[in-house]
C-alpha cells in the first residue's frame, strides 16, 4: 500500500501508519471498530458536533 494512502487511513483509524491493516478484511473490521467506538462515545443531540465530546 502506498505510504501516503496509509497515512490517510491511519488518520481515520487514529493509529500509526504502520498499524494500518494490509488486508481488505482487516481494514473493514478496523473501520467498523473505530465507528463502534465513536458511536459508543456519542452523547450529543441535533446541532451539536460529536467531535466536541471526543
Amino acid at each position, binding site marked *: 500500500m502506498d505510504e501516503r494512502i496509509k497515512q*490517510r487511513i491511519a488518520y481515520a483509524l*487514529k493509529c500509526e501508519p504502520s498499524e494500518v491493516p494490509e488486508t*481488505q*478484511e482487516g481494514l473493514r473490521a478496523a*473501520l467498523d471498530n473505530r*465507528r463502534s467506538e465513536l458511536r459508543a462515545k*456519542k452523547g450529543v*443531540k441535533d*446541532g451539536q458536533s460529536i467531535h466536541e465530546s471526543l
Partner: protein
Amino acid sequence: MANPYTNPYEAVAGREISSTSEGRHVNIEEGTLIHPFHADGLVDKGDPVAFFDGAGVALRSASATTDSIPIDVEGIWRLPVTNTGLNAFATITVGQVLYIDAGGVIFDDWTTSFTVFGYALEPIDDPADALGPDFNNGDPITKVIAVKVHWMWPWWYYIKVQPWP
C-alpha cells in the same frame, strides 16, 4: 498500463486532453483506486471509488490492477449510502455532504473517511430514532439513495502535517 495521461510525445503545454467542455470522465489505474471489497479484489462497474482527494463512480469493471478505468467524477447516481449517525445532525438530509471510506463505503461522517464523495439527494433517518422500514435497533442504516457526485478536497488532511497521534 502506466498512467494514461503520461505521453512524452504529447507533453505540450496548452494542449487539451479532454474534448472541449468535457473532463468529467477521468482515467485512473485500477491499482490506485479505493473501491468496495470484491472477491477478485478488482473494481466493478458502478462502484463508488476514491483516488487520493478524487472521487467518482467506475464506468467499467477491471480485469487487472494495471487496467485504466474511466471514472465519472460528476453526475447523479443511485448508490448505497450508510448513515452511521455519527455526523453532527445524526440524520442525513437532502443536500448534506457525504464521504467515502477506505473500504469504498459512502457514509455520513468525515472522521473515519478517506475523502469527500458528494452530496445526498434523499434523506436517511437517524439510526437511533428510526422507526418503520428504517428501524435498525440503533445500528447504521444503509439505503440506496440518489447521490450528487462531486470531486472536492478533504480539508481536514491539510490542516496538520502529521495528523496521527
